[in-house]
């Protein structure tokens, strides 16, 4: 992309992006565990509320303690992203106006008031408030975190699918015309459902893994088994749900970000009846057409089609990249002419003429900055493999939770079939009983597999974000603002400095968190 950069140092863009990615990836280590653990501790406390036994109280408090460690470590890590907007991405920050600011402000208020109130009751209120109020506070802590996630995802979704706004050439800002179009855009709804439900997988994997560690150590076995029983239901539901919501996201992306879909599939020449690649050379027939259009013969454009123009499924013509670039240039020139005319106190008719030209071509505004249409192609290798890692691991989680669910709940027939199959492939001793429940249902290798699943769950989650963010390159705001225009004219050396400060800070903080978390896990519940 360096050939596109005019006065901006190429390093400034790359390091600004790298710094943002580092901060976002670090922030995303805490968020999904918060969202996932909130659900599981909510269920644990609900059982306590019904049974009122000290066992369930201690079990709930144990998971709440781990939730607290993660919550404390994650606090304010997202604020750094906002600092980066103001310093590294100042053109972007101004250009998006209040559309981006409003959801972030709501998120801040919700996070502060809702979470800080109910988190306090959850941790301090066991002997101070009624069991019902405490239970409500625990669920509302999770709800607060989830609502916060909603607003952040609304802001992100607007960048991927800008709706409910109008560009004001006088203020140079996009102004919100419909709050509901922004807050309830189909992209935001799909993203929220897929992101939150996949976060529950991380919470469930974490709880199953910690519980399996107790089983391996032969400590707190009853707590471990009961926790697995809760987590595996949440995990199985979430893994299946992530598949369904992912499918819905795929359809939305096919409509509003077809280049991202083409990059995910490394699809250069599109067509009807497109297969979904498992890896290069092996594909599921009709899979991509099904994923993108819900029909077996739906047309899916490839990268070359998107660059050269094509006829869409609804019969309308998608212009070529060259035409979009041309129209983008007209829009930018109209903006320049409008502002000059305004400064020169030109008459209303002249201003209206420039404005009309700008409005007609504004949907391709960002293309006016593109010098070579190849720069509209996102990184193919990264998108292709990040997507496969995410989906592949998602399928693995379905198998993983499905197997544990069948074994630990001793589901009639299915449990027997699984045990016989596992025996046949040597994963259970031939002498193993056909019936087992509780801790006996969890063979040692499965406990170790559960522990290995923790980094894999994070890998899947971060891969999802890689697809979302690399897939929309080169845009910071889809079709409106490419990265090399959004970035501030800073020296790359200053960004490199803060990048490495963050790297050291984040690594230290992560080491501290993992250390505290491991100590608390080893300590176990106060049973």
């Amino acid at each position: 992309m360096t050939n596109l950069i005019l006065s901006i140092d190429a390093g400034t863009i790359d390091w600004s992006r790298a710094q943002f990615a580092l901060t976002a990836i670090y922030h995303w280590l805490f968020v999904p565990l918060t969202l996932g653990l909130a659900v599981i501790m909510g269920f644990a406390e609900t059982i306590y509320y019904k049974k009122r036994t000290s066992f369930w109280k201690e079990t709930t408090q144990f998971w709440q303690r781990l939730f607290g460690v993660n919550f404390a470590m994650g606090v304010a890590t997202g604020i750094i992203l906002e600092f980066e907007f103001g310093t590294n991405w100042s053109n972007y920050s101004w250009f998006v106006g209040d559309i981006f600011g409003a959801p972030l402000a709501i998120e801040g208020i919700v996070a502060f008031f809702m979470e800080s109130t109910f988190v306090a009751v959850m941790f301090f209120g066991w002997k101070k408030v009624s069991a019902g109020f405490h239970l409500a506070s625990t669920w509302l802590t999770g709800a607060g975190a989830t609502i916060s996630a909603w607003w952040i995802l609304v802001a992100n979704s607007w960048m991927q699918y800008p709706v409910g706004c109008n560009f004001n050439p006088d203020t140079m800002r996009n102004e919100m015309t419909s709050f509901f179009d922004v807050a309830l855009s189909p992209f935001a709804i799909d993203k929220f459902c897929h992101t939150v439900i996949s976060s529950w997988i991380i919470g469930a994997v974490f709880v199953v893994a910690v519980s399996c560690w107790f089983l391996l150590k032969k400590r707190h076995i009853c707590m471990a088994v009961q926790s697995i029983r809760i987590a595996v239901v949440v995990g199985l539901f979430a893994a299946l749900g992530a598949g369904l919501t992912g499918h819905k996201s795929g359809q939305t992306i096919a409509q509003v970000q077809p280049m991202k879909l083409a990059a995910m599939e490394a699809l250069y020449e599109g067509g009807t009846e497109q297969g979904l690649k498992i890896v290069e050379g092996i594909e599921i027939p009709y899979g991509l057409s099904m994923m993108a259009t819900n029909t077996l013969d739906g047309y899916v454009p490839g990268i070359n089609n998107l660059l050269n123009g094509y006829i869409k499924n609804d019969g309308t013509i998608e212009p070529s990249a060259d035409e979009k670039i041309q129209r983008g240039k007209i829009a930018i020139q109209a903006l320049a002419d409008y502002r000059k005319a305004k400064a020169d106190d030109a008459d209303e008719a002249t201003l209206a003429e420039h404005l009309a030209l700008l409005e007609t071509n504004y949907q391709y505004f960002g293309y006016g900055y593109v010098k070579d249409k190849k720069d509209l192609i996102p990184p193919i290798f990264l998108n292709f493999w990040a997507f496969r890692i995410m989906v592949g691991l998602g399928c693995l989680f379905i198998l993983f939770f499905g197997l544990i669910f069948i074994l630990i709940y001793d589901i009639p027939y299915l449990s027997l079939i699984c045990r016989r199959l596992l025996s046949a492939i040597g994963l259970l001793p031939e002498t193993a009983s056909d019936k087992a429940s509780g801790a006996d249902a969890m063979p040692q290798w499965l406990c170790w597999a559960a522990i290995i699943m923790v980094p894999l769950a994070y890998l899947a989650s971060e891969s999802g974000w890689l697809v979302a963010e690399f897939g929309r390159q080169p845009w910071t705001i889809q079709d409106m603002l490419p990265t090399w225009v959004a970035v501030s004219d800073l020296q790359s050396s200053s960004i490199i400095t803060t990048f490495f400060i963050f790297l050291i800070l984040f690594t230290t903080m992560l080491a501290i968190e993992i250390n505290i978390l491991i100590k608390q896990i080893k300590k176990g519940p106060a049973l």
Partner: protein
Amino acid sequence: MTKNGFWFRAFNLYYEGFRNMTLGKTLWVIVLIKLFIIFVILKIFFFPNYLDEHSTDGGESDYVANELIERAS
């Protein structure tokens, strides 16, 4: 503020909660150090508001307009 009143009980919840913290004390120390680093060191010394520094007060739109128009040429 009576002992059975809402405000006293709310205050007492936080007061006794903070006083009896064990693990929470360590976490709060870490959170406060982190907030200090983020808001005092990083924000002030490394993350100034770029537009405030490079444009006149109220002239942000002109600055951004120039940037967006110039970068297309």
